[in-house]
């Protein structure tokens, strides 16, 4: 029983990180129709930024995380402006290839600057709690807490502010939004900044537990794409719930069956869902 609860807690922790990455991706892919495969590479850049700020500049964890969110948000705006904006009217496949180009640039760039070795964070928040035979580190509680806070903030931003309303309008109907005077180009920049900032937050949260290395974005981006398709394209609740499903499936199958086939189980869930509902859990028909 305690193994079960332990695995569920791990799953929730993993699921939080996946949700954040998937939320950022669903903003970019679901709303702007940019299949940004470089989202995982940006996540990796976010982890390195946080790591550099926390170790070389000696900032504390929270400050490092917020600064790297801002910095990665700016990088996101830049990427949108320089790479994806010129491809705005092209088929999404063009953006897909451009995103693959970006992956090469970021991942190989990081490989050349930082080397292939794993970087370890200085230990922070290492308090350990023992409750009913279950072990939880403080960092894991922080991950879940910050994720919930960020999701609530994102929800408030989209539902309560004018800027958020313009994003929602663009998501529903791009031409219609343009007709009523919404600056779609500005919306694209804001959405990209939000998406990449969320990726930075996810990376900052997980990197004290997992290690930081140039290839860390690859598996995460695959899962993020699976999650947003699982939840339904462009659906924010879908991305969140899909993220938690993915985290739970991964940790439970890893704990009870086999870690070698971890990804098979996670991806088989999507295949099963698509076989039953070809538009995902929350996708519109």
């Amino acid at each position, binding site marked *: 029983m305690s193994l079960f609860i332990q695995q569920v807690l791990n799953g929730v922790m993993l699921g939080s990180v996946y949700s954040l990455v998937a939320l950022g991706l669903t903003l970019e*892919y679901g709303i702007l129709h940019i299949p940004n495969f470089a989202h995982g590479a940006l996540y990796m850049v976010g982890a390195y930024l946080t790591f550099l700020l926390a170790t070389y500049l000696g900032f504390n964890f929270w400050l490092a995380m917020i600064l790297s969110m801002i910095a990665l948000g700016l990088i996101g705006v830049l990427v949108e402006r320089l*790479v994806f904006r010129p*491809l705005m009217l092209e088929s999404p*496949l063009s953006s*897909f290839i*451009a995103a693959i180009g970006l992956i*090469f640039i970021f991942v190989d760039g990081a490989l050349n600057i930082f080397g292939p070795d794993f970087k370890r964070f200085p230990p922070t928040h290492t308090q350990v709690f023992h409750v009913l035979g279950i072990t939880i580190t403080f960092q894991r509680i922080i991950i879940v807490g910050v994720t919930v806070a960020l999701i609530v903030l994102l929800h408030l931003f989209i539902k309560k502010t004018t800027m958020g309303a313009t994003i929602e309008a663009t998501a529903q109907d791009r031409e219609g939004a343009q007709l009523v005077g919404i600056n779609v180009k500005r919306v694209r920049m804001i959405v990209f900044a939000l998406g990449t900032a969320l990726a930075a937050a996810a990376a900052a949260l997980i990197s004290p537990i997992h290690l930081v290395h140039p290839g860390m974005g690859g598996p995460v981006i695959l899962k993020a794409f699976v999650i947003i398709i699982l939840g339904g394209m462009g659906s924010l609740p879908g991305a969140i719930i899909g993220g938690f499903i993915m985290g739970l499936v991964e940790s439970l199958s890893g704990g009870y069956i086999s870690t070698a086939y971890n*990804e098979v189980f996670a991806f088989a869930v999507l295949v099963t869902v698509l076989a039953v509902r070809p*538009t995902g859990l929350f996708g519109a028909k």
Partner: protein
Amino acid sequence: MVLIMIIVAFTIPFFVSSRFILHILILCCIWAMAATSMNLIMGYTGQVNLAHGAFFGIGAYSAGLLILKLGIPFWPALILACAITVVLGFLIGLLALRTKGSYFAIGTMCFNVIVTVIIDSWEGLTEGARGLLGIPRPPPIPLPFGKEIAFTSVAANYYLILVSLLLTILVIYRIVHSMMGRSFMAVRGNEELAESLGMNAMKAKLLSFLISTFFAAWAGVLYATYIGFLSPEISDYHVTFELLTFCLIGGLGTMVGPLIGAFILTIISELLHGIAVPRMVAYGFVLIIIMIFLRGGIMGGARMLWLRLGGKGGR
């Protein structure tokens, strides 16, 4: 023009003696074959199939295992490997083709990852990460008068693979310009409309999917026997992405596009070995710049240039 290209392709081994250049050309041909077959489902039928690398890998592994573990000769193994891949493709296609657009793309990508993980983890069958070693080259083909074509030299392998590539192009060209090809393009244009006109869109998509997996498997078998070594990475989704890049950089939905893409990008990526900037970083910039400045890939760019120069060709 086409004839000249074919003659040039056939005479290359007579004046290029460098094994390295021939080796690169062979790889170009293999990738061009896989990219051309991907173009059928993606460019002409409009289904973004991100499991193509998996089929390449399944074909390669099936042939490797049939030859090494069961001792089946090359030619039957080639046919069997293609058959195995098409059967697996049928099962995957039946399930995946129910979905559309992005759902299909990501769904097939999942299959690709699953296939790679299975090849990597099923060590009893595939040797896992150690890979399959020592797959023999094809046996000699006996000719009348006691002669034979042996596949010991690089040039002989080049001819085998070149002929396979030309066959692939010929078959896919004939398909695209037949009624079947028209039905594929109707599905690409508007699936609902095609169905409302009494077409079976699912059948058309599945057929196109299976033909493309068949040629992907064939390319995989040639890769396996030419290189002689297989590791799970050969079925990885990175292979799929590479093939996709070839198609898009060359020009999706054109016959020559995937060929140009495969040859140019393979050669560029070899040339980039000599420069100061990290190779893959430079490659990334090349991809982005081609995508932004040559709409519709190299073929699209060429067509635009042609129109601008006052030519009346193009469409």
